[in-house]
């Protein structure tokens, strides 16, 4: 035993839970050094290209590959007939063909893939494939599809009296356009055939193991012969939950025996992933004279497009969260996912909670207007709190500071009037106004989101943690399969290890499928679930260390690891880690699950379906040129409860980014689909906010611990994107007096020149 000393005399670990250590990829990304999946290369590599359907719906009468195969440098041209395993895949339902066989069901559906020595050769070969299509009339109207019974899922929710009546009733029909995740790193990856007849796939994805399962199934290979390694991910936002080029690259690699790389172009990327569901929502809200909600009736139609993707889960979210963070005694809710020949829709940040928030928050403002109440006041009167009951019957047992979040944004000082700098007017430097017709408006909104996977899904993560001496210093190695998609998960895993094991040096191994599944980097769940798994594995390692010490030096109760030492509860060092570990690492792997959830009753929608609820509020201030219909968001104040800010800087980053994405949906982001055909598959016309569109933001972060969650944390990624859209629209309504029932709000909606 060494002389007892306190941990502080050896220096407490920095960069633990609650700190904001520098992220390892930060400088690389800012300086352009970071290797994204599109930067991968291998010796002897071929390039893949995809031939896609130009039609929203057509029968395939024949495919002639002759001209493509005749092109020098072409190594393989594959169609549906060449898929050795399952012909289809999907996250929830395996209904999406790897390559279309007899019929194409949306514009951009893959029909054939080519491998060639050069990407240009591959593209030219793809263009030489002759597909004999017989175009068929596409189904492009979701309500018509619904009427015809083309439904992926219907989720009803019934609470209380379906025939309740109220003194004040407001109703409305609201529409949300098709938003795209618009990540900057297009779909890409590299497949390498292996000597065992399998394949190694280096890929940008959100969930390695769900890709592995689907890829192996389509290749007809056992899962252990398909190994996935996470390549640098250039953003995700839900668009990497479904497969894109994964199976195609592996098919080509296995066929040619060569590494095959595929990288989508920007335009192709818009056809290569699912989008946010467009929504058509009918709401009726009934309230008493004091503005207390008596009932909500809602009919929500989400356009799922051609294939199921995650539509069933998105529909469940829309249904269960569709009245918002309010106490509503009587609910009649029906949410549907329709099957059409529009582009497939699936996961995108907010996942069904975004669309409905625009609906119910628009209704709350309408109700406030009908009652002559302030918009914050009507929300406070109905705000749920801990103990409130959701329309599903689930009791909200964690913190639910709905009223407080609203008060926080309300009480922020109002932003200043425009200074006269042209960049501050609507239209910016484009010189459309010098203040003429500019009217300011303020709007509020609050939203609710479930965190983690729901409805009884076995939602877990796996972490392997090893503590060992390297060069005389204790080092922790953390290995999970969790996908860093830019949110800062690598940093967070290291922070947890530092805090739990009191060791400064932590190495986070690259994510791959040689360790168990971490689940998806979606549903705001990774800090919670992979964070929980890393903590559990660290605690097991600590117990292992203490057991070793106990075997030598007697009972180790109440001891912990800090500053590279074993210390007592009061911080007195009793042993150096170097002594306890020697040359023998302690390694533990743990699977970790959050508390179980339960399915919804298919008739009543009752059930404890969700793990945790998260809330964020926004106040938007806008200046509108009411004559030209141009909008500039002046400021956004937001407040969010995050339970515990594991990394405060990353929390702010998520809140800023999510809020900006919601602003984009309010004002400009829409993939325009006409007769099933995408009209703007490029960043020339799919507009996302620039730095001159995103205003200064004030952020209030509450840390009200959730006793069920690791460190009390609450998922952060999605809530900020949910309520910023309706807050911006409410502000425009306040400035213009217009009803505005559809987002994105286009200039012509504000001038009547539609």
């Amino acid at each position, binding site marked *: 035993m060494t002389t007892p000393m306190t941990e502080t005399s050896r220096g407490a670990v920095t960069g633990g839970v609650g700190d904001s250590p520098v992220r390892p990829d930060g400088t690389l990304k800012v300086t352009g050094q970071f290797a994204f999946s599109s930067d991968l290369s291998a010796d002897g590599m071929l390039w893949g290209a995809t031939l896609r359907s130009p039609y929203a719906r057509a029968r395939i009468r024949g495919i002639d590959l002759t001209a493509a195969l005749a092109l020098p440098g072409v190594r393989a041209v594959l169609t549906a007939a060449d898929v050795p395993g399952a012909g289809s895949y999907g996250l929830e339902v395996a209904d999406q063909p790897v390559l279309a066989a007899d019929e194409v069901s949306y514009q951009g559906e893959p029909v054939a893939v080519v491998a060639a020595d050069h990407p240009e050769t591959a593209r030219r070969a793809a263009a030489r494939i002759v597909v004999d299509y017989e175009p068929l009339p596409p189904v492009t109207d979701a309500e018509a599809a619904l009427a015809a019974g083309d439904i992926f899922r219907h989720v009803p929710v019934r609470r209380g009296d379906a025939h309740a009546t109220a003194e004040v009733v407001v109703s409305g029909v609201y529409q949300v356009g098709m938003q795209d995740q618009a990540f900057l790193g297009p779909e890409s990856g590299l497949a390498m055939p292996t000597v065992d007849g399998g394949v190694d796939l280096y890929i940008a994805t959100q969930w390695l193991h769900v890709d592995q399962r689907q890829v192996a199934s389509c290749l007809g290979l056992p899962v252990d012969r398909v190994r996935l390694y996470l390549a640098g991910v250039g953003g995700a936002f839900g668009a990497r939950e479904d497969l894109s080029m994964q199976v195609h690259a592996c098919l080509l690699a296995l066929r040619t025996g060569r590494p095959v790389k595929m990288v989508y*172009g920007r335009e192709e990327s818009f056809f290569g992933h699912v989008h946010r569901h467009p929504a058509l929502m009918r709401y009726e809200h009934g309230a008493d004279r004091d503005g207390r909600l008596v009932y909500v009736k809602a009919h929500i139609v989400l356009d799922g497009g051609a294939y199921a993707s995650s539509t069933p889960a998105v529909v469940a979210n829309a249904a269960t969260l569709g009245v918002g963070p309010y106490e509503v005694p009587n609910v009649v809710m029906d949410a549907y996912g329709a099957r059409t020949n529009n582009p497939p829709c699936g996961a995108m940040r907010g996942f069904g909670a975004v669309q409905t928030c625009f609906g119910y928050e628009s209704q709350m403002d309408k109700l406030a207007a009908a009652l002559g109440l302030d918009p914050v006041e009507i929300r406070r009167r109905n705000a749920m709190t801990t103990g409130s009951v959701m329309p599903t019957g689930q009791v909200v047992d964690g913190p639910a500071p709905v009223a407080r979040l609203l008060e926080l944004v309300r009480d922020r000082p109002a932003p200043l009037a425009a200074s006269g700098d042209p960049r501050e007017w609507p*239209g910016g430097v484009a010189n459309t106004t010098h203040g003429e017709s500019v009217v300011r408006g303020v709007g509020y909104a609050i939203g609710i989101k479930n965190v983690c996977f729901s409805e009884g899904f076995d939602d877990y993560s796996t972490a392997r943690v090893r503590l060992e001496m390297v060069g005389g210093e204790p080092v922790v190695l953390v290995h999970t399969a969790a996908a860093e998609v830019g949110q800062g998960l690598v940093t967070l895993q290291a922070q947890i290890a530092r805090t739990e094991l009191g060791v400064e040096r932590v190495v986070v191994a690259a994510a791959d499928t040689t360790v168990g599944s971490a689940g998806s980097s979606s549903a705001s769940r990774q800090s919670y679930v992979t964070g929980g798994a890393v903590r559990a594995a660290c605690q097991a390692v600590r117990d292992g260390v203490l057991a070793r010490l106990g075997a030598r030096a007697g009972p180790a109760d109440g001891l912990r690891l800090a500053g590279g030492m074993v210390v007592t509860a009061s911080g007195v060092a009793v042993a150096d880690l170097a002594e306890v570990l020697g040359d023998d690492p302690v390694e533990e792997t743990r699977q970790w699950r959050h508390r179980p959830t339960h399915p919804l009753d298919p008739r009543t929608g009752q059930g404890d379906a969700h793990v945790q609820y998260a809330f964020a509020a926004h106040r938007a201030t806008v200046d509108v040129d009411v004559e*030209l*219909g141009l909008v500039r968001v002046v400021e956004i104040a937001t407040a969010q409860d995050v339970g515990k800010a594991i990394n405060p800087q990353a929390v702010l980053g998520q809140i800023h980014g999510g809020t900006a994405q919601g602003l984009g949906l309010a004002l400009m982001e829409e993939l325009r689909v006409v007769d099933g055909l995408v009209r703007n598959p*490029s960043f020339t016309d799919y507009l996302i906010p*620039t730095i001159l569109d995103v205003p200064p933001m004030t952020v209030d972060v509450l840390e009200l611990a959730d006793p069920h969650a690791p460190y009390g944390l609450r998922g952060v990624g999605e809530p900020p994107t949910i309520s910023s859209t309706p807050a911006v629209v409410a502000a425009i309504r306040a400035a213009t007096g217009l009803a505005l029932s559809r987002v994105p709000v286009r200039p012509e909606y504000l001038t009547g020149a539609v």
Partner: protein
Amino acid sequence: MDFLSPATWAEALAAKAANPDALPIAGGTDVMVELNFDRRRPSALLDLTRIGELTEWGTDGDLLRIGSGVTYARIITELAHRLPGLAMAARTVGSPQIRNRGTVGGNLGSASPAGDALPPLLAAGALVELASTRGVRRLPVAEFFTGPKRTVRAPDELIAAFLVPSHRGPHQFAKIGSRNAMVIAVCSFALALRPVTGEVGTGIGSAGPTPLRAAQAERLLADELPWRTAAVLPEAVVGRFGELVAGAAAPIDDIRGTAAYRRHALSVLARRTLRWAWEEYRREGP
């Protein structure tokens, strides 16, 4: 694809004459997008960036002569006083990176109805100078465009420069986009008052197959503006001007906006820019 990289203007003209299919490339901000999107597969690129004289500007008698290779960034920093309308338009082009690379010559070469430099050139009464081994010709910019992305430029010709009467009078430019930066114009409007001659120039962008002039609107102002007294603008003239500008446009419904919105917005921009220009005139005198 060949890459021709002449070092002098004479070599460039010779190369174009020998390879009329070669695609000139200046800043490349349009050309590279077309190549990347596979919209064009030229047999050769003719790089103009080594030719120093294309990046020069100076006077030519009464006129300012600006080389086709002068970038937006330089229009803003070097020519804002002489060509205020064009400089206002240049500030709205793309992002700083695009303004550093992109040239007015390239905007003329692309001849997109949405080219932001074009309405101010129309309003200013600019000339385009075309050159080939056969010789040099100058023509009014209004006669340069023949349709969407089509011009009178012959296959062996290059754009050498554009020429503008040196600025005497207020200029304005305003552009509608559906975000506050980095956006293709939904529509745009340029106005130039020429108090010395009592003339008015206009240019309409993104509301027709080519950039357009509003000739009737120009005549209205030439006749009705109280040039000598610099009196307050009659509201009726302002309103009528807006109507005539909107009427001169030939917009369509497309992904970026409706025809009705474009007409409406043009009438608003016409009225606003006229008021701003007239205020300037009253402040600063003829």
